[in-house]
């Protein structure tokens, strides 16, 4: 055993005890943070989208985003579109574009 073993042991147990005490508080904090992020952040985005019919979702670059799905007919089997393939632009990306996570 090291000379300061008992002190380290005590500190470790104190730390573990604090974690146990603070864990419920952390869960509440996380819940509150996520609730604000969702009801304010996501809510405003959603509201902005709904106020401007025909506009794309602010965060979306896709034409078949979930929000667009709402405007689709209930039964797509009656759709007269010939194809649903989307052509992808054939542009060569710069090296830096591959280093970005977006």
């Amino acid at each position, binding site marked *: 055993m090291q000379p300061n073993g008992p002190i380290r042991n005590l500190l470790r147990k104190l730390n573990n005890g604090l974690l146990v005490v603070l864990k419920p508080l952390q869960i509440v904090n996380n819940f509150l943070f*996520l609730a604000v992020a*969702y009801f304010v952040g996501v809510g405003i985005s959603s509201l902005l989208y709904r106020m401007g019919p025909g506009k794309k979702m602010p*965060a979306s670059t896709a034409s078949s985003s979930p929000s667009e*799905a709402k405007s689709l007919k209930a039964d797509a089997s009656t759709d007269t579109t010939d194809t649903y*393939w*989307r052509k992808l632009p054939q542009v060569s990306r710069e090296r830096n574009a591959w280093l970005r996570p977006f």
Partner: protein
Amino acid sequence: MRILGLGCHYHDASAALLIDGQIVAAVDEERFTRMKHDPSFPQQAVEYCLRQAGIGIDDLDAIAFYEKPLVKFERLLSQHAGHYPFTFGTFRKAMPSWITEKLRLRRLVKKKLGFEGEVFFLDHHLSHAAGAFYPSPFDEAAVLTVDGVGEWTTTALGMGRGTRLELTHEIRFPDSIGLLYSTVTAYLGFTVNNSEYKVMGLSAYGEKNRARNPYYLKMREVIDLKADGSFRLVRSYFDYEHAERMPSKKFCDLFGGPPRKPEEPVTRRHEDVAAAVQLVTEDAVFAMLRELHRITQCPNVVLSGGVALNSVMNGKILSETPFQNVWIQPNSGDGGSSMGAALFVYHALMGNPRSYRLENPFLGPGYTSQEVEAFLQERGIVYHRFPSREALLQDTARRIAENEIVGWFQGRAEWGPRALGARSILSNAGNPEMRDILNLKVKHREAFRPFAPSVCAEEAATYFECDTPLPPAADFMLMVYPVRPEWRDRLAAVTHVDGSGRLQAVQRAQHPLYYDLIRAVGEVTGVGVVINTSFNVRGEPIVATPEQAYRCMMGTAIDCLVLEEFLILRSENLRDAWDAEALAGD
């Protein structure tokens, strides 16, 4: 040039190491953590890859990640906003891992691996496409990727030429063949992203005639499929965009009742629904392939994505489409994308020529005889050493012929979800009762699921009505073919209810010992086929270490374990016996 490919955070996390154009090591993280389809950061897989190559993290030139996390995050936010305010539950569950890990990948790489060099981020389906094209035997090939969803893309068409690879067409979330199949998987009471192969197995019991299957036209109602293979799903039948369940109430009503509970019996209705989704999947994928051929006019095609693991569909590609050659990589689901990411960076971004062909799928960890013997001695396990390779083959063949169940642990582990003769449980395919014996003693799996046969590649056409020449994907157990009628009775243990078998054609160059064993079994029994099923306890990944192999044998009724050059008999080590079934999962 050393590039490490990484894939993680959805399912089947993996790592693959490329050195000077050759893949030297590749493995899924689940083999180490023992958690099936483990999505977590592949720390142990990376450590293995580096150890195998004898290099450190600082020796890497770059890391390639298999997708763009921020684009995926954008889709997720868009889903939540699109269905606000009914998605708070899923938002609350999903966000913590995004905030702490998934959005900070570069930091995570630095923290967990200590790597401070360049990290490349590829598109999910481009990684799939690269994982299919670059290791294929083709200089030019059309490319089809089909899975559940990546960032936005669910399906893509493309073309590879030399070192160039381009995706030209796509279909986006929420329209997804993979998610349609997963929805039916959930509806039939199986686990999504795990048990889709069970639906494929069950489909053989249902009505395969499109006109007579009572659910085929209903399945076509939920998807608007165009002649060119493009499609849209009818949203009202699906809840996966905004809830944790997949089929909607309308979907359940259409197919005649609520989702099957896992403990409920499988009925004729379930079999027909499984057959219907299999037929519709084939309709869609074959239409895509015909369109892809029309666009590219190329005779070769490579497939990737989780849907490319559908071996029933794969076995019909050459007969149902104009393509003349097909190749599918053994780990074509998300697990294989780490390899694709590394290869894309090396060839497409850095312009290096191609020299690698994935002919040998044994890229995982292996153990020397010294390491195995040290383990056996340390654990006090009773064992025998075969005096020669010939003795090993003769003794193992005799045991298989006498209907013993043999655990087979030889060489480096397989890349991908299939046991291909390195981590396998083997038994006598010539005994019609072997399927029941295996299920009773070891696998305890659903009665409707077939066992796969391994056969020497040169003899495949003797037993199967297969394509000739045999596509290389058959080496990886990715093609189902009809068993020849004259062999169906003698191969009843590996012949599915519809007369088919999920063939593994073994090439001697890939695994000489396994090839020679099949030959030896043929000499003893007169049937050159063995049953090959994955070496694992139900609910666990395939074994990775001698310790896990031994534990698996002692937890089941496997009779013996041929562990490199050693033979371990269960009957001589009963003090270590336990009941794996008591702890088994799905």
